């Protein structure tokens, strides 16, 4: 008697087909994010040679090491290069075009399409760098970039010049979008004993305290031109929006206050802010000019309306969080309050951030929310036009407060895990996740506009 097979050919085929479909769907889901965030193009295989020391100043060795390490990191962090690892690179330090042998770089094991190289010197209190970017396959006219830097030699100069050169390469090879090597991140940290606003380089270096108020400082938002830092101060006087001048290094006056204002957000024109206030009884979204004129209420619906953010491309729309239907959801509207559109379909969604190209919202979402519900709060990216979304973090802890980098390729965010909060960074497709802060509790990061 023939045994009846449990799974016929048809069932197996159907199963395999659905697997394929799922894989394809997932791959496509990743693709639309990569395309929209300029991470999608074929990654260029780039080699960064160690720069040669062109002198014998005792400070030069440190400067050279710092430069090489920072240049390599910046190019790796950019997200658009397939970097040749140092172990696969030929063990040479060409200091000038005359010294470079392109075939060493174009052939295995390096297989580089592009190579950055040059020389660094410290002389008479100046740090001088010559840097080139060569196309390894174009032996006739390989030069893509030739840069020269000459700056007063200080403890951070080599690092700074490396940032500048990396940005030049990234811009040149990355379709004209500016690199982020000189951008900074503002965040709230309790490291000094009280919650204050801190600032660090985009890669976590140079962490330093900005405010010294001794109260609770939250929600830092730097202005588009980098001159003014808005943030929220909590004290027994209430919740106020404060302004710090980055140029004058002191607090300056923000003329709007009633004790219930928080979550400020700059419009891309640098003249207007949106914020949440309960001055009319219920937390609503308001807008004002930075000097306090044209104070206007934009929302008028029962339920908390908080965390506004402007469309940075147009300056004519706001995304924000509203609890008007119960648990908080992401909405968008025109900045005069019309055209309200709900974006999320349930769960608990907060902290929207609008991508620089105007196409995406990043936000924190707990899709199954409530006591004992499975899953946690993760960072999601949603395409505004289609409402399709992708989950970027998994099992990291409770994440919140995503903030886009100005190149649209990176997202910085907060992770709470085992009672501690850290600021992490990642590429906007969810890869390359790592922590930037290690000390104290760091939260609510905000990426500078340039």
């Amino acid at each position, binding site marked *: 008697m023939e045994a009846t097979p449990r799974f016929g050919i048809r069932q197996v085929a159907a199963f395999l087909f659905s697997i394929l479909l799922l894989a394809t769907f997932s791959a496509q889901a990743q693709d639309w994010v990569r395309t929209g965030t300029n991470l999608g193009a074929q990654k260029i295989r780039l080699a960064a040679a160690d720069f040669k020391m062109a002198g014998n100043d005792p400070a030069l060795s440190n400067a050279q090491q710092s430069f090489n390490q920072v240049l390599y990191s910046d190019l790796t962090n950019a997200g658009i290069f397939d970097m040749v690892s140092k172990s696969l690179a030929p063990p040479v330090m060409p200091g000038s075009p005359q010294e470079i042998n392109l075939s060493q770089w174009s052939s295995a094991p390096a297989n580089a399409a592009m190579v950055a190289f040059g020389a660094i010197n410290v002389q008479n209190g100046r740090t001088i760098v010559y840097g080139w970017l060569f196309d390894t396959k174009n032996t006739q006219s390989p030069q893509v970039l030739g840069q020269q830097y000459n700056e007063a030699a200080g403890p951070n100069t080599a690092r700074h010049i490396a940032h500048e050169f990396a940005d030049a390469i990234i811009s040149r090879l990355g379709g004209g979008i500016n690199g982020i090597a000189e951008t900074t991140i503002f965040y709230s940290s309790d490291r000094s004993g009280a*919650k204050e606003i801190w600032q660090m380089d985009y890669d976590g270096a140079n962490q330093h305290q900005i405010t010294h108020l001794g109260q*609770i400082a*939250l*929600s830092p938002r730097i202005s588009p031109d980098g001159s003014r830092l808005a943030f*929220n101060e*909590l004290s*027994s*006087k*209430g*919740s106020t929006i404060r302004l710090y001048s980055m140029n004058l290094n002191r607090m300056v006056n923000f003329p709007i206050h009633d*004790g*219930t204002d*928080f*979550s400020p957000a700059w419009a891309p024109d640098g003249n207007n802010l949106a914020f*949440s206030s*309960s001055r009319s*009884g*219920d*937390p609503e979204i308001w807008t004002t000019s930075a000097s306090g004129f044209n104070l206007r209420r934009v929302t008028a619906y029962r339920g*908390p*309306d*908080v*965390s506004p953010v402007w469309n940075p491309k147009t300056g004519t729309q706001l995304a924000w*969080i509203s*609890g008007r239907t119960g*648990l*908080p959801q992401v909405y968008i509207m025109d900045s005069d309050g019309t055209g309200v559109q709900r974006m999320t379909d349930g769960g*608990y969604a*907060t*902290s929207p951030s609008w991508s620089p190209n105007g196409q995406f919202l990043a936000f*924190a979402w707990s899709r199954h929310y*409530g*006591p004992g519900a499975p899953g946690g*709060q993760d960072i999601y990216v949603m395409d505004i036009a289609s409402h399709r979304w992708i989950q970027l973090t998994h099992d990291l802890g*409770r994440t*919140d*407060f995503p903030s886009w980098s100005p190149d649209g390729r990176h997202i910085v965010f907060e992770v709470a895990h085992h*009672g501690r909060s850290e600021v992490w960074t990642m590429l906007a497709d969810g890869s390359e996740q790592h922590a930037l802060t290690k000390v104290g509790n760091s*939260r*609510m990061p905000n990426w500078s506009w340039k």
Partner: protein
Amino acid sequence: MKHKKNSALAAAALTAFLIVTGCHHKKAAAPEPPAPPAETTPAPTANITATPDTINPGQSAVLNWTTTDTTDVSIEGIGAVPSSGTKTVSPAETTTYHLTARGDGGSTDASATVTVGQAQQPNTSGQLTEAEFEQNVKPVFFDYDSYSIRPDAQQAITADAAFLQSHPSAKILIAGYCDDRGSAEYNLALGQNRANSAKTALTQAGVNASRIRSISYGKEKQFCTEENESCWQQNRRAQFSLDQ
């Protein structure tokens, strides 16, 4: 009748006098015999007290009077009264009770004043300490993601309002708090709504709104840090304190 009474009294007095004087055998040299009792009626005496002599509005005092040799006694505002007696009075304001006593020997008067004090002064906030405030004005607690006043919260509000009404010049700061789950900014709004709810409930219970200020700390200040429902409930609150 009165005459008879007076004669009897006189006779009694005379007898008493004689007995008394008779008891004291003074060895006087040929004392002159006492003069015969004069034919005079003793003057009336009167005495009136009020106990206590100072009261608050709504309280009462007891008038207590005694008179001698009186035929009629009256107290102004009350009328004719027995020659001795007590009466409870409850004047609304400071009153002097003037007693007039008349007798065969004349008349006399007496008075007692009942002082009615100001309405009891409550302690000003300068005397009310922060500790006393927090002992007596209890926080109210909220459900998950909610800013509605639950029945147990309403009970606390009622008790808190009673205490606050007895200290009418104390100013109140209400701060709203959240548990540490959920987003920092959304929780600032939730905390504000909790403080506002508590303020509304207090004003509905009679506390003047102008005495109350409401702020939010969101999830930025925690009362406990355990990751369990009991601690989370502790953090979901509106807390009252003495405002400056």
